[in-house]
């Protein structure tokens, strides 16, 4: 692992009233690494993503982006520092065209463009996610999967250094899954650092350098996908105890 990590979490916790959704999580993510965040439903994966992107403020702990503490500085500042994300449940801008949904991510964020340059860039991104001719369409006319593609294009419009994908591959059919995985591989090849939350284990295996397994908010395993998925505790967390 290179000596300057892109992203580190140190003893990060998040409480909602009595519920500890993220419990004392620490990890370090090297530049250009792909980390998988897996775990059963409700284990706190999305919450962890929300903490990194700044949608939520951690109850405790620190999160550093290239050494700088970003915990609690607000999502807009974190976005401008080069962290972009997609949402588990797509959040589109229904009153805007598809093209504008993409350009929205490229005006105020990490890389900033405007005017014709931005439009061209957004068109190129739409092409990349597989929607070459959708620019002028109303957002609500797209299928859910296509909306997810637009959301990824929006995240990429700011040319982020760190990309957070929350179950972006969920719901794709096998062919789409293949192109999806290839796309994420490309993004990585461009030098981006990526965290993916995913229930599609096949994707985790082929994409991730490393995996963190969460259960009830806590980290229960960390390692290569192969090791982690063979871990007895992980299997128990996913499937419950054998005697049940």
């Amino acid at each position, binding site marked *: 692992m290179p000596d300057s990590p892109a992203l580190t979490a140190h003893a990060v916790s*998040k409480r*909602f*009233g009595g519920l500890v959704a993220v419990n004392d999580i620490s990890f370090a993510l090297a530049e250009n690494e792909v980390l998988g965040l897996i775990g059963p439903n409700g284990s706190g994966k999305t919450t962890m993503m929300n903490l990194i992107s700044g949608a*939520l*403020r*951690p*109850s405790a702990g620190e999160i550093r982006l290239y050494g700088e503490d970003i915990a609690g500085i607000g999502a807009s500042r974190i976005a401008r520092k080069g962290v972009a994300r997609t949402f588990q449940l797509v959040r589109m801008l229904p009153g805007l065209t598809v093209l504008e949904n993409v350009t929205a991510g490229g005006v105020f964020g990490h890389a900033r463009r405007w005017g014709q340059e931005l439009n061209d860039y957004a068109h190129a991104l739409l092409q990349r996610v597989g929607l070459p001719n959708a620019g002028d369409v109303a957002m609500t006319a797209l299928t859910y999967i296509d909306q997810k593609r637009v959301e990824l294009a929006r995240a990429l419009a700011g040319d982020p250094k760190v990309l957070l994908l929350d179950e972006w591959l969920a719901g794709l059919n096998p062919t789409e899954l293949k192109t999806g995985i290839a796309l994420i591989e490309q993004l990585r090849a461009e030098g981006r650092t990526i965290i993916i939350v995913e229930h599609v284990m096949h994707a985790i295996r082929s994409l991730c350098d490393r995996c963190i397994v969460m259960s009830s908010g806590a980290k229960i395993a960390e390692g290569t996908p192969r090791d982690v998925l063979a871990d007895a505790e992980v299997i128990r967390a996913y499937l419950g105890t054998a005697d049940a």
Partner: protein
Amino acid sequence: MDIIIIGLLLGATYALMAMGLQLQYGVARIMNLANGEMLIAGAFGTFWFYTASNASPFYALIGVIPLAFAVNWAIYRVLIVPLVRRARNQGQLEVDCILATFGLSFILVGILLAVFGGEYLSYSYLARPIFILGEPYGLNRVAAFIGSLVLCLGLYLWLHRTRPGLALRAVSVNPAAAGLVSINVTRASALAFALGGAVTAAGGVLLSMFLTFDASLGVVFTLKALIIVILGGVSDIRGAILAAFILGLAETTVASLVDPGLTLAAAYLLFMAILLVRPEGLLGRRSS
């Protein structure tokens, strides 16, 4: 000292009024900007009843509460339900409700103006002093205080000891989950809205005993009730009661130390303090 006592006397009626709004906003999730007009309507009704019959204004409650309940039930059914149906999301519903109830507030003011005219009204009931700790206070204020306490307590017990009350509280915590355990959320919301309106109007009955009012005063009470509810936390009755007394005290303090015409300034000062210091409310849990 007398500031504190007057503040407390006032606070009880405010608590009642805020409980009304809380039922509407916390349970039915309707931001009702016509809430204060309902209160003023209760006050006008009482004025009419008292001047016509000369019986105790407390008897007006017998008429006002069911009437306000029915009117608010109808408002919910006729005006709010279509908005709920039409709304594609919570945000649009909120905007629509704000606009609709704002329009409604002008209609109510218009009706009151048409029926009662635009003058300031007041009547004199129990206008005798009563001595508390050696200082004289209006007996009507004390009567309204006791009336408010009784109604607050009744409502509180109803919410916490009966099945319909439980249903309302369940809806206020989580409408989706309440629906899953076979609570009819629409009915519960209508009930909460109607009950909230009735409670608010009852607050108007009690307030009219010691307050001079006119048709345009409603907005001030809407604002006060909203501030109390925000200060107390949207779904927390105890918080609202505490907040009501704080507002009562703050107002009385400003009224007696600075100027009686500045009561709204006191409310706003309190509002600013909440916004800057504790946006989640007095007893509300911080989510972080």
